[in-house]
């Protein structure tokens, strides 16, 4: 399922030939995302971020899947956050931990996730995996 969602994103982005259109799409995704309320955008939900901030909220639902909500103070990061959330959202902790996340590289946004820690996306993915680990442990103990 996660793999399928990634493929859909890759196909969606293959459609854009110009860098501008790619970024316009990301900005649009950022604007459309529901995000978090100002009240929720507090330090306890802050995952990281040097230049732009990223907040992440995760919960384990009764049906055994993870619900994710996130936000950023920069619109491009917000759009990228929306993509990451859409890939992991409503999946089980097991599926999240088993996933091979490659879509960022494939849509030509590798610099946004790999070396640079500036926009907090790498930290966000790491945090999602940490949540999944904890949720999985909870499921096993129940």
């Amino acid at each position, binding site marked *: 399922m996660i793999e399928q969602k990634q493929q859909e994103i890759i196909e969606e982005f293959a459609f854009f030939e110009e*860098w501008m259109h790619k*970024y316009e799409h990301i900005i649009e995704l950022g604007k459309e995302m529901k995000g978090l309320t100002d009240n929720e955008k507090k330090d306890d939900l802050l995952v990281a971020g*040097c230049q*732009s901030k990223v907040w992440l909220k995760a919960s384990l639902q009764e049906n055994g899947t993870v619900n994710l909500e996130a936000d950023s103070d*920069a619109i491009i990061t917000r759009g990228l956050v929306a993509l990451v959330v859409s890939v992991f959202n409503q999946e089980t902790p097991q599926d999240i931990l088993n996933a091979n996340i490659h879509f960022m590289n494939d849509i030509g946004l590798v610099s946004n996730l790999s070396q640079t820690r500036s*926009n907090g996306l790498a930290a966000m993915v790491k945090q999602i995996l940490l949540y999944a680990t904890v949720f999985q442990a909870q499921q096993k103990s129940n």
Partner: protein
Amino acid sequence: MDNPTLQHEMKELRNQFPALNQTVYGRPLVYLDNAATTQKPQRVIDSISEYYSKWNANIHRGAHYLANASTEKFEATRSALAEMLHANFREEIIFTQGSTDSVNMLSTILENEVNEGDEIWVTEMEHHANFVPWQVLAEKKKAVFRYVPMTASGEWDLDYAKNEITERAKIVAFNYVSNALGTINPIQELIALARNAGAYVVIDGAQAVAHFDVNVQALNCDFFLFSAHKMYGPTGLGVLWGKKELLEKLPPYRYGGEMIQKVSVTGTTFNVLPFKYESGTPNIEAVIAFNESISFCHEVGRENMHAHEYFLLKTATERLKEIDGAFVYADLPNKVGVLSFNVEGIHSADIGTLLDQQGVAVRTGHHCTQPLWEKLGTTGSVRASFACYNTVEDVELFIAALNKSVNMLR
């Protein structure tokens, strides 16, 4: 201010910088991140290559041809630096790993000079490198960490400094030029206040040395430090100038080879200046190549560099103000070529990302000066910084790319 001859001469300099002659994402590179690090002229690159091709040998201790040759070249840079800074003695020039390393060295060797209740002063405008080491030293010695506030216009509050810096001040450390805003600070006044208080005076000249001449004797400071890579030199190399009498008196920083006179199982005596502060094998190729940067700056002339960069700054500032919602920090007359700005309702990181896609390299964020941005009520800015090789065309490409970015983000 508009000087076509100077602009033409400066444009010619571009040919000496191979890194400027390239495309990124298929667009010509517009490099406006010079306050972070400048590009290097061919002669610096050649010097590094030549060192490893011809002269590589460990310095100061070898008894052979290559060791003597590399030592001679290494020490020639020290002499050139002493001349550049108008130092009294060439052994007052200490090679470090950079500005950050220089400050850490100082905050360590000055440790015994600070007692409980003493004050250590910085300014609200400091780069974290000239802020955190002093803050930590103050904590360690139970001293009081204080700072000269910055006004909303991006200048020091000197009235505050006049009233508050007293004989309790033991160290006063401050930047010559703000890395985040480009403000050229009235350091003579702060030096005088610190001198009256009997404090050690430390100047972070990292953002100054590529733009104007420095005379450490005329400044009457105790320590002056900077990095090579911000003045067209190699990375990983810094300079600490200190008054000889102080460096002789203060303890060593790092212990090891080179910095000793005699080592025995019962004790060790330390070497004389500058070797006392240069333990281990240094960054030899960087020191040797740095001599080429010094000559480069000297030959072009820092007055010419500053005049040209200032012209670019003024042109860019005027063009920037035409953009709806754009505002410039520290829009002051006394600045180096640093344009720090934001556009209302848009995050600096978003602007930086879209400028990058168009081949324009700038810095975004807090520029390692978080207290400064806290004072200005935000978290950072976009910073475009100019060097001698930038052109009016660069400014035009930058403004066009900025307009496009802003339109996309609105």
